[in-house]
């Protein structure tokens, strides 16, 4: 059976994956306009500046939207269906895809607060996922 896809680690995205390996979520922040951005990109999509730093973010956000896969599009996920994919809006602004763990799919809601958790997949890759965060 095919393995699940893993990120292709490049010079551009290495700081992201090194941070998750150490249990930290870091995103690019534009030094020109101070905005955080994701997806990872060479230039700021708002002001086009190439000047950015990797800055730690809170790891907190809300589920903007979510879907539950019943169809198996990739054989490596055959035993996972039904599984969720969520679009999380981080408190710092950017959106990222992920999964919510530790809760049944039927309990997912748009705008539910979540916080990042880290799941080691290989020696090199640790995936950021999210779990529900109460009291927010």
């Amino acid at each position, binding site marked *: 059976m095919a393995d*699940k896809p893993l990120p292709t680690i490049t010079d551009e995205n290495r700081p992201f994956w090194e941070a998750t390996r150490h249990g930290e979520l870091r995103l690019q922040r534009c030094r020109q306009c101070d905005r955080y951005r994701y*997806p990872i990109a060479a230039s700021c999509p708002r002001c086009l500046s190439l000047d950015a730093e990797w800055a730690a973010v809170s790891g907190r956000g809300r589920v903007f939207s979510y*879907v539950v896969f*019943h169809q198996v599009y990739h054989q490596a996920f055959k035993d996972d269906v*039904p599984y969720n994919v969520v679009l999380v*809006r981080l408190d710092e602004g*950017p*959106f990222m*895809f*992920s999964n919510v763990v530790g809760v049944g799919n039927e309990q997912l809601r748009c705008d539910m607060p979540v916080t990042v958790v880290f799941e080691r997949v290989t020696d090199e890759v640790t995936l950021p996922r999210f779990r529900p965060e109460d009291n927010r």
Partner: protein
Amino acid sequence: MGGATGLVLLQLASFAVASGAANAVACVFGDAARTGGSRFSAAAGWGDSWGIWGMFSAAANSALTARRHMHEFGTTSLQLAEVAVACRRHASLNEAASMREPITVEDHQASRMVVDPLRLLDCCLISDGGVAFIVTSLERARALRRRPVAVLGVGQANSPETIGNPAWWYVPHQETAAQAAYRMAGVAPRDIHVAQLYDNFTISVIVWLEHAGFCKRGEGGAFVEGGRIRLGGALPVNTAGGNLSESYMQGWLHIVEGVRQLRGECGARQVPGAELCLVTGRGMTLNCAAAAVLARG
């Protein structure tokens, strides 16, 4: 440009003819996605980053849109079903359509989940086929045997961003494309008699109804109720069955159906007195959008 390609080529061909660069332009499409193997289940988005979390397929992008639309505006799966039922009813009147067996809302609700909240009957077909149309000057077209159809207005709008744009899920560039087409045509949504709206998934029709100005933001779900988009309703939509039930020619047949309606060639599915038709297309994840206003020549 995926499902926007046909309309984008219509735009380019119209400009080429209007500028004198060409006398006539043939726009041609062919696909063998059904027998040749579908490409539509690949990792959604660009690069490898989305598949890491199991995010695959065009269906999932539209499912995210549907879920958020449901959350913000109260849109329901029963309203999505209305779109599927209308398209299938129209296809049942179209001898060339692939799926002609009528369906009910209950059939839609009983169809299997693909990517929740989208069920099988929310999804377009995967088809083999070809489509062509020819663009020339109205003067030249008037000398031909068939009734001409005029391209009154065309517009396209594209977004280079996906999730980097907070409004990406709602594909706001669709509104830009539709407005450009209306502006060039000098018409308003209330002038349109029949619409061919890109329907890769049922939710796309609901969002297009909002972006094309037939109702306000968030009202697309309520708009499709009560048979409003069926033949005989206030705005018949996808009168040949659309991508959902006629054939998935990535929106090219929407242009063809617009032409046929305006020529009055549609027989049992003809919209009486159809003089203006809006056609829309959308492709490349959610990123390319195009629209055209066609008129009886």
